[in-house]
């Protein structure tokens, strides 16, 4: 009886563990292969560096964080165009949709979308944070004092 019990237990254990392991293996592979599930989190400086190094190709999915450059927001019909800056580099973003409530020039946003040929970025979403202290992690530039200078978007 004890032998039978042990065997049954063992079988149950083996089946459970292998099933769970199989499922997790499939999911890990999915993660590792990337595709739509993953997006790199970058700031404009990282974007320039990656473009220069050939690490960012048209069609790549990225999250781009930074501050909305003052004076850069323009609208045409439902498409909004604005510039995200980390005060060292800038990226122009096109977004078709309604902007979140707290979207404002000079404030932090995280956008997610597809990198396009020719250095444009089309966002499929613009996220803002619903906190009092409005600086989503990853949107604060590393040298925020640089942002206070009005001519930083020269020329």
């Amino acid at each position, binding site marked *: 009886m004890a032998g039978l019990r042990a065997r049954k237990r063992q079988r149950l254990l083996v089946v459970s563990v292998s099933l769970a392991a199989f499922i997790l293996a499939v999911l890990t592979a999915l993660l590792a292969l990337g595709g739509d599930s993953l997006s790199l989190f970058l700031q404009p*400086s990282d974007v320039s560096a990656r473009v220069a*190094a050939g690490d960012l190709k048209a069609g790549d999915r990225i999250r781009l964080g930074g501050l909305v450059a003052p004076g850069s927001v323009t609208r045409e019909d439902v498409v909004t165009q604005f510039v995200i800056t980390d005060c060292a580099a800038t990226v122009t973003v096109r977004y078709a949709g309604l902007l979140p409530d707290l979207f404002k020039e000079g404030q932090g946003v995280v956008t997610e979308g597809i990198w396009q040929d020719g250095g444009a970025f089309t966002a499929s979403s613009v996220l803002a944070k619903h906190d009092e202290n409005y600086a989503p992690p990853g949107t604060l530039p590393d040298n925020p004092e*640089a942002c*206070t*200078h009005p001519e930083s978007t*020269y*020329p």
Partner: protein
Amino acid sequence: MTRFVPAVAFVAMVALFAVMMLSDRNPKEINSVLIGRTVPDFALPTLDGGTAGDAVLKARGKPVLVNFFASWCVPCRAEHQTLMDLAARGDLVMVGIAYKDRPGDTRAFLDELGNPFEVVLRDETGDVAIEFGVSGAPETFLIDRDGTIRYRHWGPMVGDTIAQRLAPELEALGLP
């Protein structure tokens, strides 16, 4: 032993968190791919009306310090005294590259704070900055006597970053 699997998995997870929290990581800081390579080829106008290229950075007999700066860049102002001090040592060739700056503004900036540079190049379009993988001003590169890039300093050279980061690199090149 299988009974300890959850504990082991958990310990691994905590270790991951601890590493990520304790490491002095600045995730935005990307190591330049150029380190260990020769200076890229380029040609730029200089501030005093001439033209200069990568030759000013190579085979000068002394190590070269290249600083990307701009008059509109506040941190550049902050690190300027450091550059003046480095220039005063005399064992480094100091080269400035004015990044996306108007020549008049650059001159006014250097007149006001002093000019540590042997030569100032004008990169108005930012093209050369891209060649260097510069993500913004200020950024500084240390080039050895053979024209190989040895070190990249991201952001202003102020405070203890000089002692902790730049000094060892200078020492490696045989400078005190």
